[in-house]
C-alpha cells in the first residue's frame, strides 16, 4: 500500500524567512500530490497541488517541487508570515485499475510550522 511520510515533524522559522517542508512517498504509481494546511481546530485547507507529469508548480508565495526519481515532494513558502503557522500535510493519490483515484488520499503525518515574529 501507499505510505506518505515527512522527514521533519517540526519546523521553526523567523518571520520573513523562507520555509521548506519535505515529504517522501513510497508508491511510484502515485500520480497526484497535494499540500494542505491545517490550523488548530479546523479542517485541512488546500494550498497547492501537482500532477506527476510536472516537477514544479508555483502559487502565491508557495512552490511545490516533485522529484519522482527519489519519490520526494517539497513545499516552499516564501517570506513566511506568522499566519503561516500551522500543520502542513502532504497527500497523494494513485490511480486504480480503471485509471481513476477517486480522490482517495493517503496523508503523511504532518509537519508543525511555527513562525516567530
Amino acid at each position: 500500500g501507499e505510505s506518505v511520510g515527512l522527514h521533519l515533524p517540526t519546523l521553526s522559522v523567523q518571520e520573513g524567512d523562507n520555509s521548506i517542508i519535505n515529504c517522501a512517498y513510497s508508491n511510484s504509481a502515485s500520480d497526484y500530490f497535494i499540500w494542505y494546511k491545517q490550523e488548530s481546530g479546523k479542517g485541512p485547507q488546500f494550498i497547492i497541488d501537482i500532477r506527476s507529469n510536472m516537477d514544479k508548480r508555483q502559487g502565491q508565495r508557495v512552490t511545490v517541487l516533485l522529484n519522482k526519481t527519489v519519490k520526494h515532494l517539497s513545499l516552499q513558502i516564501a517570506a513566511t508570515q506568522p499566519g503561516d503557522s500551522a500543520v502542513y500535510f502532504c497527500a497523494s493519490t494513485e490511480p486504480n485499475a480503471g485509471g481513476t483515484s477517486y480522490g482517495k488520499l493517503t496523508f503523511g503525518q504532518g509537519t508543525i510550522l511555527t513562525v516567530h515574529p
Partner: protein
Amino acid sequence: NAGVTQTPKFRILKIGQSMTLQCAQDMNHNYMYWYRQDPGMGLKLIYYSVGAGITDKGEVPNGYNVSRSTTEDFPLRLELAAPSQTSVYFCASSYSSPAAPFFGPGTRLTVL
C-alpha cells in the same frame, strides 16, 4: 455557498451507543469522503462515494457505515461505539478526480 457542513461539532458517546455524523455539501460535487484524524496523525479514509447510490470502503471502514441517497448528503453511521473511535472526523468533497477534496470543519467525537 456554505461549502461542506458537518454536524455536530462535538459529541461524547458511551461505549456501545450509536450515532450518525451528518455531512452536506452545496457545491454539486460528485465525490464525497469521510476521513478520521487521530491526535498528531494524518487523515485516514473511512468511506467514499463517487455519486448518489454508490459507496465504497476506504482504509479503515470497520465499525462504520455510510449511505448516499442524494448528491448533497453523505452521513456516517457509528454502530456500537468503541473508545478506538475517539477521533476527529472530517467530511470532504470534490467535483472530479483527481482533484483536491474540499474539507468540512470536522466533528470531534469522544467515546468513553
